[in-house]
C-alpha cells in the first residue's frame, strides 16, 4: 500500500463528518439514519456522527458505510451513485474509499406525485 508519509491521518470522526456533510448536500437526501437503536454511527473523541460508519479493512482500504433517508421520486441507484461521487469528491484522499450506500427509508413529501408511470 502506498501509505504516504501522512503526518497524521484524519481520524474516523473527521472523515465521517465530511462524509455526512457531502451526503446531506444532495437534494434527495432527507437525512442520515442511525438505525433502530441509533447504533449506526461513527464514534470519536467527544463526538458522534450518526448514519455514517468509517472503517479501514484489512487491506488498508477505507470503507465508508452510509444509511440514508431519501425523498420519494427519483431512481434510488442514481441517487446512490451521486451521493457516492459527492462523498468521494469531499474526501479527495489518494486512497479513494469504497462508499456503500444503504437506502434505509424513504419519505413521501406529499407533494404532487401525479405523474403515474413516468417515462
Amino acid at each position, binding site marked *: 500500500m502506498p501509505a504516504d508519509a501522512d503526518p497524521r491521518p484524519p481520524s474516523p470522526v473527521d472523515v465521517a463528518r465530511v462524509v455526512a456533510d457531502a451526503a446531506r448536500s444532495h437534494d434527495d437526501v432527507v437525512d442520515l439514519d442511525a438505525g433502530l437503536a441509533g447504533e449506526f454511527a461513527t464514534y470519536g473523541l467527544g463526538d458522534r456522527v450518526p448514519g455514517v460508519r468509517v472503517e479501514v479493512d484489512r487491506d488498508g482500504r477505507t470503507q465508508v458505510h452510509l444509511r440514508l433517508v431519501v425523498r420519494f421520486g427519483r431512481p*434510488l441507484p442514481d441517487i446512490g451513485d451521486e451521493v457516492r461521487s459527492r462523498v468521494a469528491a469531499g474526501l479527495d484522499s489518494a486512497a479513494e474509499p469504497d462508499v456503500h450506500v444503504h437506502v434505509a427509508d424513504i419519505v413521501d413529501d406529499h407533494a404532487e406525485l401525479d405523474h*403515474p408511470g413516468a417515462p
Partner: protein
Amino acid sequence: MTDTSTSTSMQNQSKDRPSTGGGASGSLARLETDKGVTSISEDVVGKIAAIAAREVEGVESLGGAISGALSSVVGRIRGDEHKTAGVGVEVGTKQAAVDLSMTIRYPASIMDVTGAVRQNVIDRIETMTGLEVVEVNIAVNDLAFPGGDQDQNTGRVE
C-alpha cells in the same frame, strides 16, 4: 375472496418468486459498483409500493380485513402507523414480488383499478429501485361507498 390474481404479469401461483440470495432476513436489493454497493431496504420497497398504489384514483385505502388488522398491529409496534399496512413485499437481489390488499371506492371498476395499481406499482418500483417486479398480487377486500359509512355496523339492532 375477490383476489384479482388473474391478469397481466401473473404466472399461475407464485412459482417464480424472487430468488433471495442466501442471506435470509437481511434481504435487500443490491447494486454493486466498483466504488461500493448501493442497497435498498425491504421497507423502502414496501413504502414505494404503498405510495404507488395510493396514487391510483379509485383506491380508498390499503389494508383491511385480516391482513390489515395484523399489519396495523405490527405497524403500531414498529411505530410507523399504517404506512405500509396491506403491503407485503419479498425482495431479492434483483427481483421483487408484491402483495397488496385494499379497499376500492364504490362505483369504480375493480378490474380497471387493480390493473392500474399493478401497472403503477411495477413502474414505480422498477424505475426507482431497478428491481424487476415479478408479480403483484392484489386482494380487494372491501368497497367504500361515497356515503362513507362503510365501516359502521350495519346490523339491524342497536
